[in-house]
């Protein structure tokens, strides 16, 4: 494989020297009509860092991720990925998106394609990887996440957990530098959550830079280097999980966490 580190071969997220800045967001604003969803987000994610975004539904977590992936045009502010200002005019969004994998709450697998074709579509069409090579890489990734026997199945034959793991593999097949995970376990039956979280934990162990919006507080506590609490489009508090979950500084964070505890989700 040309001596290049390939996603299927070993480690993930070869995003430059450790500690380099993978994502830098400055004063990001985004409105849908009159509804201002993001009201000045400023944050930074270092390479190989895992950041969890927590907060109630509608707090802006998903929108933030979609903005980073350029799926939503922003109103003002700046987003830099791996040192490149991706919100500058004339930036090729398709090129930017190749470096970032995003996984959605609702999986969004292509229902008319087999698992294998779901995974190989982007490498063959975007990276122009020769098909045999793309298939080999897809098999390696699917094998790694225990999905090799599903390779010829259509998505509607898979369980939710399997579908979501395929969606993660599909994103990894593009060998992204950064992964964005948008509440990837929220649509799953409780017994299927663990298998997906295991995959994410493995990615983190492999050094993948990740920005994760999640409602799984226990998971955030275990995996995150830092946790950001969002409310009404602002980052209210940002701290290592041990600190944020046990000793939140802001009253709003405390109120949110209290509700979570009452709902027995922490």
């Amino acid at each position: 494989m040309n001596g290049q580190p390939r996603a299927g071969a070993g480690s993930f997220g070869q995003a430059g020297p450790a500690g380099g800045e993978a994502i830098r967001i400055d004063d990001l604003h985004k409105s849908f009509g009159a509804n201002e969803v993001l009201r000045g987000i400023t944050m930074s994610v270092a390479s190989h860092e895992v950041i969890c975004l927590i907060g109630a539904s509608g707090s802006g977590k998903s929108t933030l991720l979609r903005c980073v992936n350029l799926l939503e045009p922003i109103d003002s502010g700046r987003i830099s990925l791996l040192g490149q200002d991706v919100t500058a005019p004339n930036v090729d969004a398709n090129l930017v998106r190749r470096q970032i994998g995003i996984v959605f709450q609702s999986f969004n697998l292509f229902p008319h394609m087999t698992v294998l074709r779901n995974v190989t579509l982007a490498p063959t069409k975007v990276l122009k990887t020769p098909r045999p090579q793309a298939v080999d890489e897809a098999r390696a990734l699917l094998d790694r996440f225990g999905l090799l026997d599903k390779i010829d199945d259509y998505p509607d034959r898979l369980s939710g957990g399997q579908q979501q793991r395929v969606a993660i593999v599909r994103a990894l097949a593009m060998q992204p530098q950064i992964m964005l995970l948008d509440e990837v376990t929220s649509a799953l039956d409780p017994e299927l959550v663990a298998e997906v979280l295991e995959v994410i934990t493995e990615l983190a162990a492999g050094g993948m830079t990740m920005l994760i919006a999640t409602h799984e507080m226990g998971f955030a506590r275990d995996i995150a280097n830092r946790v950001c609490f969002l409310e009404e489009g602002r980052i209210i508090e940002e701290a290592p999980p041990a600190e944020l979950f046990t000793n939140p500084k802001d009253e709003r964070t405390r109120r949110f966490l209290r509700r979570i505890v009452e709902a027995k989700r922490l």
Partner: protein
Amino acid sequence: MDSNSPMSPGQPAGSFAGMGRGPGLFSSYRGARAALISTISTIVVLAALAAVFLLAAGAHAFEHTFLSPTDMWRSFIGNPKQGYYSVGAAIWLNIRMFLVAEVLILALALFIALIRQSTGPALFPIRILATGYVDFFRGVPLILVIFALGFGVPALSLPFISTQPDAVYGVMALVLSYSAYVSEVYRAGLNSVHQSQVSAARSLGLSQGTALRYVVLPQAVRNIIPPLLNDFISLQKDTALVGTLGVIEANKAASIYSETVFNFSSFTVAAILFLILTIPLARFTDRLIERDRRRRLAGGA
């Protein structure tokens, strides 16, 4: 008897057991008893219909004018020396017009649908044109479009364009008119693909065109195959309208026969030939719908 079960074999023959459970005419009747009941019911209905025709005062005249075997055979074979053409041979022109028109409609309609679905501000004028096109050709009766092209284009006396056979103008009219309808079918199909599919494709780095080609269109087309084929069944019949330009297609050939021999059995022949064309396509549509339904059900299991 369990009245909730639509499959109950003991149901009265008159209730349409299993309606809406897929198109297989007999697939929903289970068991010999159901088959027997359905057979008897069919015979009774057909006999009643036959009785109406046979006992009517003009039954004999009707039979002679519309169902005369000799005239049907003569018009099917044709005899140019007697001044009439073969309906059986003329139907080939309908088939050819249909096939050519179908391919062109699929392409033109998709193009129009994509323009109408586009969002870029630069495409605004083309979008307006496409909308106007659809409004116009859906609103104007097909036969007027056929007249306009069939008589209007030759009258322009343009080189090449104005010197085509009339069947070509007929096909052009069919294409213009049906593309307006079919583009709306396409649009419904494109809209039926959830926006999240586009998000997923674009987030993988696929360009808009690639996402359309590999992710959106295949799903859209799958969803619209039944209405698409429905339009094509209709198109097969409407090729008969091209006969108004003097083109000898099946209906025109039948009409010439009836005017020559004063017997309408030639139209019966044309009707039978059109049925032979459309019924297989209709059954094929049914099968596709059923297959799709089964696939979805299997997926939900």
